[in-house]
């Protein structure tokens, strides 16, 4: 049997406890992550409503930004509903040491959006959902919420400083959900140019990150 051949003596690391105790500066640093932790730990409906008010319109905007095959007018409302239900259901497994709530919810939304569009445009049975690609082991070195918030702030600041064409290409890739090949066809640019433009944008952003990190 294939499964038995692949099975091996694995030394699974014990699942690390999620951050139950955060110091005050960390609490202030990211209210959304804090709310998400409350939803996971105590099924806090008030916290969930706050998350909904903040992320609902962003998720709907994210759905509207899609320019993918399979897009339909009700995608926005459907995506908000599906993502927020997933947020409720998966909140207990949320690990604030791996990603902030904003990044975590983005990954849920991205996976949901792809799967919803694929279900609309694909007639074949798909054994894997996009979500299945996103089960990564816990890291040995957890990242505190404060560190994550800082790094997100840097990403945000560096995005604002990108030249227009680099900003445009990142939006096409992340918000419109265009592959490099689709972006190349749409912009009338060689694939290599699209690839290097995307890399350039990120190098520029990482440069800012590394410069600040040295200070």
């Amino acid at each position, binding site marked *: *049997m*294939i*499964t038995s*051949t*692949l*099975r*091996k003596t*694995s030394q699974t690391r014990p699942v690390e406890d999620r951050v139950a105790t955060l110091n005050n500066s960390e609490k202030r640093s990211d209210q959304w992550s804090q709310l998400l932790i409350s939803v996971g730990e105590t099924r806090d409906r008030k916290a969930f409503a706050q998350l*909904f*008010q903040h992320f*609902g*319109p*962003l998720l*709907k*905007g994210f759905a*509207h930004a899609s320019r993918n095959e399979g897009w339909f007018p009700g995608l*926005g*409302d459907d995506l*908000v509903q599906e993502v927020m*239900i997933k947020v*409720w*259901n998966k909140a207990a497994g949320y690990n604030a040491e791996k*990603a902030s709530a*904003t*990044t975590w*919810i*983005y*990954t849920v939304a*991205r996976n949901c959006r*792809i799967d919803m569009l694929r279900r609309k445009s694909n007639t*074949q*049975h*798909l*054994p*894997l959902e*996009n979500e*299945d*690609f996103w*089960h*990564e*082991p816990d*890291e*040995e070195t957890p990242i505190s919420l404060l560190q994550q918030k800082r*790094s*997100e702030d840097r990403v*945000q600041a560096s*995005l604002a400083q990108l030249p227009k064409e680099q900003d445009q290409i*990142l*939006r096409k*890739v*992340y*918000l419109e*959900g*265009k*592959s*490099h090949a*689709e972006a190349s066809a749409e912009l009338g640019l060689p694939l290599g140019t699209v*690839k290097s433009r995307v*890399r350039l944008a*990120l190098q520029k952003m990482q440069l800012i990150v590394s410069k600040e990190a040295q200070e």
Partner: protein
Amino acid sequence: MITSTNHHPDENMLIEFSAGTLDTAASICVSAHLHFCSSCRAKLLRLDQVGSQLMSQAEPVEVKDDALALVMEKIDSGDNAAPKEPSFHGDMPFSVNKLMGTSLINKNWKRLSSSVDVARFKTGQDDFEVALHKICAGGKTPKHDHEGLEYTVVLKGSFSDENAVYREGDFLLRQPGDVHQPMGAQNGECICLSALSAPIKPTSPLGFLMKPWLRINPM
């Protein structure tokens, strides 16, 4: 967890993976690599942060007044409980586990040559054949070229070719014109995940021995 992988997907692949625009076959291979590679996971987190910040900056669109009430209703009705996740087989990447549990075309290995066995997956796309290959200890595979792309991720053991030794987690992309002759390590069998976009062509006179390799069966 093994983190000392030497061969990684390139930045553009990670970016497309993070944006969710990478095709299914490549995504399976990238996700398998990420299982083993903490440095790519760290890169990916930064890329996801780019996505999340772009989403945060996108034009918000007002949701319907009763949207939250509807969601709470669905949650309370309880029919949205998260589906049970498949159990892990040893230390394999999640996506590979799930494919092994649900999508193997045959339950047993099929012999490709005296040293290589194959197990193919159904993955719901027509562009790539996704499969596991098992090379026996010290097994030689025929020297071959590629007509299309071939992604390989080492899941267990190691193999080598003219250029390097590839160990657990290593990610390789072969393109047309890359000729190589993989060889299983002497100290044990090697299992690789692969996604193949077109038949590979043998370059050695004994290439006919690898005839079964020439049929790709995307599922």
